[in-house]
């Protein structure tokens, strides 16, 4: 789709996500307070901060679950503020969840096929009467889902129920399902939560791989500092809803303010 509003930074790199003074207030609590993010194409950006800092709230704002009290956000220059979640997803922002939320009664491959829903056209009329396009599109769903599963090495589990997968694989399946919606920007909410060191390493490899393979722009929330310092290029640190620091990963992690917020004085 042609989009003439695309934003570029001073070096001419395309800006995929820009938030402009994003705020949300719940009663008297400013959960997210004037947050300005700028994420460039292909970047892996980390959002960190102590518990309750408002990280997941930022994700909920960026996916349309919450409407911001003030401020706006733009995907590739297009204003998506206030759009409902399904619409935001179609425009190109997909996410995973802090607590895994797969469709447990569907099989592994069906979960990915649900994510593909908007990618392959087929109306309910065609499905009900099983017209030729229904069969064609069903085959296409299946094949594209299988391709994605292969990327995440989940294809051997394709007919298992999602709930029967081991934990680490469920996390991967969530990423695969989000990738199926063909996003421009992928939001990962604590992808390494509850993983053992081996699984975390595998996850880091996967994230690096999808960045390379799909040129994906990724924003992730994470507490695992090994993962953050290992793969994130840039960071924003949130504390009580406000930006405490931002910039290159190594610099930010050595910032005395950040260290103070994390481990106290």
């Amino acid at each position, binding site marked *: 789709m042609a989009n003439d509003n695309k934003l570029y930074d001073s070096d001419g790199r395309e800006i995929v996500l820009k938030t402009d003074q994003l705020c949300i207030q719940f009663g008297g609590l400013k959960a997210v307070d004037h947050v300005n993010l700028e994420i460039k194409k292909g970047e892996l950006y980390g959002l960190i901060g102590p518990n309750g800092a408002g990280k997941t709230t930022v994700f909920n704002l960026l996916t349309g679950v919450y409407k911001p009290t003030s401020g706006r956000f733009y995907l590739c220059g297009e204003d998506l503020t206030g759009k409902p979640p399904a619409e935001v997803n179609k425009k190109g922002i997909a996410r995973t969840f802090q607590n895994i939320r*797969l*469709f447990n009664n*569907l099989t592994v491959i069906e979960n990915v096929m649900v994510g593909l829903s908007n990618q*392959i056209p087929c109306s309910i009329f065609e499905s009900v009467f099983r017209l030729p396009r229904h069969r064609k*599109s069903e085959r296409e769903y299946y094949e594209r889902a299988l391709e994605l599963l292969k990327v995440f090495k989940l294809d051997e589990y394709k007919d298992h129920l999602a709930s029967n997968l081991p934990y680490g694989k469920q996390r991967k399946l969530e990423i695969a399902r989000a990738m199926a919606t063909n996003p421009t920007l992928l939001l990962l909410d604590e992808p390494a939560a509850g993983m053992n060191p081996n699984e975390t390493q595998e996850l880091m490899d996967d994230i690096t791989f999808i960045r390379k393979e799909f040129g994906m722009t990724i924003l992730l929330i994470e507490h695992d500092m090994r993962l953050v310092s290992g793969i994130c290029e840039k960071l924003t640190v949130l504390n009580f809803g406000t930006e405490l620091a931002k910039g290159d990963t190594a610099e930010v992690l050595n910032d005395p303010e950040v260290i103070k917020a994390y481990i106290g004085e």
Partner: protein
Amino acid sequence: MDFLVTLINGLSSGGTYAIIALGYTMVYGIAKMLNFAHGDIIMVGGYAMYVTLMAMGHPVIAVCAAAVFCMILGIVIEKVAYKPLRGASPLAVLITAIGVSFLLQSLAQIIFGSSPKMPLKLQISGAVTIGAMRIDYSTILTLAVTVIIMVALSVFVKYSKTGRAMVAVSEDRDAALLMGINTNRIITITFAIGSVLAAVAGYLMLCKAPSLSNTLGSMPGIKAFTAAVIGGIGSIPGAMVGGLLLGVVECISYSIPALAPFTDAVEFSILIIVLLVKPSGILGKMRREKV
């Protein structure tokens, strides 16, 4: 042989319950509400058939017209009465559904009067005799329609984009939204399918006994709801199993002289027993509350 006939009759009337129960269970699974006006859609379908018969004459056209009319009615009810209450307390939605039920019954009474109508053209009389067994044509038709609907619906849910989206929405509406699924549309489709099934059930009831009043759908509605709960509300195979089981129990109870007067009581006792033994229903899943 008598028992076999009873069983076949039971499966047949159970089939009708199952078709109605599918409407309850799908709407519950996806919109998380009990649509107590569902039984009255059957009645509206009956009147739609009656009116079409008056105007055009042919039963097949009447059934098609009723299906279309009920589908539109189901969609309109959802949009007007239930959609504004999305996110409201379940009690408010439940009471609204009961209100819609009364509204439909009263409207039918105002328009068509309170004396029953007899759309005799819908009746299918006659029976086939196999050996010592005598089975009504209407029973055979009901069984056939039930099987077709069950198979078609299962295939639709399992092997179509919309079907998968329905399962996804029933499981986690918010996650489905975030995967780009238009949940409002899925809910509308669910109401449409449920209402068409109600119209079909209405025809199956009238082809056995063509007597039409504004409370036509009340008792079958309650029994089908019972069937849906017995099978595990929210579960499509559960509604099928629950409906068939209830129908068979009903016919067996009728065939035993001592139990015949208490048939309804016997049926609802099944509900109580199932709920005592397995509160989530035969095929229902236990939801463990996370602490």
